[in-house]
């Protein structure tokens, strides 16, 4: 046993400093795709919508004027658009991608003589969620995870969260075996017919107040399995979702960001502001 302790000590500290302000985005993979909307042209937009296999990119319009939407909640990170249209679609390694509102995952860009980001109407009152969470969960959060029909990629990343790299416990976040002790229900995967009842029972078994996190595009939007014959669809069709984490699967940083967002210790992913162009590519 002492040899194990020695080996552990010799490894040194490997834990990521996320969410400290200077993150070394060490996971080596991209967490989302950022739209460089200034460079969007009509043919690119139409081609991108054509090639996107998950329907995350949709375009409507003519050569002169039109509108492109990119929904990070449906993007399975296949990388096609980034490979073929690198000037517009930029893979981003920044893991801060989670949002409180489903609609915040959608970027709308109009193309015409001058490109412009379009505003989005807001859905559920985000401020209310924030207020609830800030009072109760700021210091410690207990998670009950439910796999509602995932490919086990999200579970794999969740298991990595408890490992030494992400080390969830340093942030006061823990997985709990029983919903009785849980503050937040973290759902991965598209909700299948057979998992609907267990999911709803788990939610019912949790004490108030409780939050719901949809992790991964399958939980956010159905992802690759949207509209399948034995699926019920995304989580927000059944439960009120407070935090959405995109990704297929979300990177550990994205998961951490989503959890911190639920605790109100982080901010939503930055919206499509004009000044942010290339970051950490």
């Amino acid at each position, binding site marked *: 046993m002492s040899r194990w302790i020695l080996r552990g000590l010799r490894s040194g500290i490997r834990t990521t400093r996320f969410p400290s302000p200077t993150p070394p985005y060490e996971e080596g993979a991209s967490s989302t795709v950022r739209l460089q909307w200034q460079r969007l042209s009509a043919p690119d937009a139409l081609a991108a919508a054509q090639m996107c296999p998950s329907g995350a990119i949709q375009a409507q319009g003519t050569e002169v004027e039109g509108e492109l939407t990119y929904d990070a909640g449906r993007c399975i990170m296949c990388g096609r658009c980034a490979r073929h249209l690198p000037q517009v679609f930029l893979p981003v390694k920044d893991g801060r991608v989670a949002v409180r509102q489903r609609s915040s995952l959608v970027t709308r860009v109009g193309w015409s003589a001058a490109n412009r980001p379009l505003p989005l109407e807001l859905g559920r009152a985000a401020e209310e969620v924030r207020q609830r969470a800030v009072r109760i969960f700021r210091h410690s959060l207990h998670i009950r995870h*439910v796999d509602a029909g995932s490919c086990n990629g999200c579970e794999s990343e969740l298991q990595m969260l408890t490992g030494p790299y992400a080390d969830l416990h340093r942030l006061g976040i823990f997985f709990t075996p*029983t*919903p*009785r002790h849980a503050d937040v229900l973290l759902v991965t995967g598209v909700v299948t017919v057979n998992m609907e*009842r*267990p*999911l709803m*029972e*788990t939610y*019912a*078994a949790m*004490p*108030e107040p409780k939050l719901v996190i949809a992790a991964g595009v399958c939980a956010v939007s159905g992802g690759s399995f949207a509209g399948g014959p034995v699926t019920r669809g995304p989580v927000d069709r059944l439960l009120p979702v407070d935090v959405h984490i995109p990704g297929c699967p979300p990177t550990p940083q994205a998961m951490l960001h989503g959890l911190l967002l639920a605790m109100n210790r982080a901010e939503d992913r930055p919206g499509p502001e004009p000044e942010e162009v290339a970051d950490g590519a």
Partner: protein
Amino acid sequence: MALELLAAALACYAVASLLGLGVLWWRGFAELSAAAGFVAGLLGVGTAAVWLGGGRGVLLLPVSTPLGGFTVAATPLAATFVLLTGVVSSGLSLFTAGYTPHVGGALRQACVHSLLNITFAAVILVLAAANALTFLVAWETMVIATYVLVTVEFDRPGRPQAAFLMLALSKLGFIAIAGGFAAMGALRSGVSFATLARHPAPGAGLASIVFLLFLIGFGVKAGLVPLQGWLTEAHPAAPANVSAALSGVVVAVAIYGLVLTVLTLLGPPSAWWGYLTLGAGVITALYGVLFSLVVPNFKRMLAYSTIENLGFMIAMVGLALVFISSHQPLLGAAALVVAILHALYHGLLKSTAFMGAGCIDVATHGLDLDRLGGLARRMRWSTLLFFVAAMGLAGIPPLNGFQTEWLGLQMLIRSRILATPESRLYLAGAGLLLTLTFALATTAYVRVFGGAFLGAPRSREARQAREVPWTMRLGMFVTAAAAVVTALVPAIGIGAAVTSASAVTRVPQLLNALLPPIFLKPQQFALPARLGGTFLSQILPGNGVVITPTSFNYAFISPPYILLSLLAVIGLTAGAIHLLGRGEPMRRDPWVGGGSSFRPSMQYTATGFTNLFRSTFGRVFRDRRTVAQEYHQSPYYAHSVSYERRVVEPVETYLYRPVVLAARQLSARFGVIQGGNVGLYLLYVVAVFVILLLIH
């Protein structure tokens, strides 16, 4: 006064017994008989009170036999046991009124009512007996009455065999006791216990033999391993009220007999008597508790627990012998007090527990712990009363079991005043084993209470259980309340036991050694007196707040203080939850993973609970596991799996069974001469006649 009350009690039992027979004609006699029994019990309590208060008297009954007359006397030693008998019998009478319809038809009901009262009368006669003949006759009456009571439900499987085993072992015990009395000359005409006590004088060798005979004789009734077999068979077989009488009173009489004969009639004891008795008691206690942990039947578990408690009492009698033979009369007397006190407490608690088993049996028609559960919500009062008994028997403060167990262990720790290191080591070992025993006993009662009363019902019968008739609950209430009162006012029980023990050992100031009068001498007992303040000194003046193992400097406990602090802790916690808790509590089914609904079969069973002990004490239990499956085509398609885990009772398997087999073979040999032919038998008669003539 002392004997008049006794006579009144006996007469009342006789009336109750006759009224019980009346059930054959009219059902209403059952209630009348119960009322008479209740009054008889109260008269018994009164008798005990008078005896404890110093009432004395001797009466020679106007009947004579070649072996002498029948004499009864009021003795302080018997008084505590009479008290126990009185309380238990009054409670049981009430219980019986509600319970007997469960036993069967009018004949059986009449039989139970009548014989139960006869049993109590016989017990009181045993306790009042002033010479050996009276003692033996009353004892035998008690044995036969209980034998018939155990066989009342003779048509249920295993019942006649159980009763027969009890009768056979009781006969063995009777022979040993009678032999002991005969050997010491107690069966001569005109020799009373009082004269024997004044001239105890068989030689040392003879005294030892007589001691062994008494140890075996009373050991049978007291469930001394390996003579305990009848207890665990008869208790589950008997109706619950009979079990309660057996465990509450009859076995306590065996302790009385042991103390009476060994400590008063045999003169100064040898040291080895004490060590032997102590060792046998400790082994019995451990054996009893180990099996009480694993057996699945509720009443069998209680029976094993009885063995455990009797083991503790016998061990304490042994300890008293050790101390007395080492010239430590105060400690010896204190150990004897523990033995008598435990007999009293255990009798009250165990009769309550067996009545609780009766309630369950009436409500669910089954006593398999793995098929019960959830009774707490269905039978609130029975559950509460059984809970009191279980807490007491498990040794949870502030109830009774804790006091005697604590005192007993403290007495064993006092062994350091003994001369030789071997004896100190021996007593320390005994203390260790008894501590283990008490800890396991707590676990055993957790299992029983949890398995039967908590959780969700595991069978249809348990689900449909309803509360039992009020008379049964009232009967339980009598004994349970007596237990609680004696626990919280230790002066009652300890006072009675001290009076009884002082009569045997003649140690002055025993009461003040065990129950120091802290409020009368506040300067000597500064700490507890201050703790008690002026409040307790008003309601509990003098003795009775603090118990010590004969020396205040050594250690002390105070049951009323413990109760007050427990109530304070519970109250504070409840208050904190009430004040700090937020919102309405939500009620949901137990969490089972979201896939299926909760089923009662998902609960940990009482058998599952014992797994740790089955494996830890695997050598004792010879735990055997068999899994058999039925399948289609190949074992991969099993459609039913049966699982069995069995413990082997070593004494029954390796001692009784060979004896029974040998006896069978022997009788088979003798069977040869039993031809069944009348001519043959006539020939035998002629042959015997001829032989007699020749000898003459």
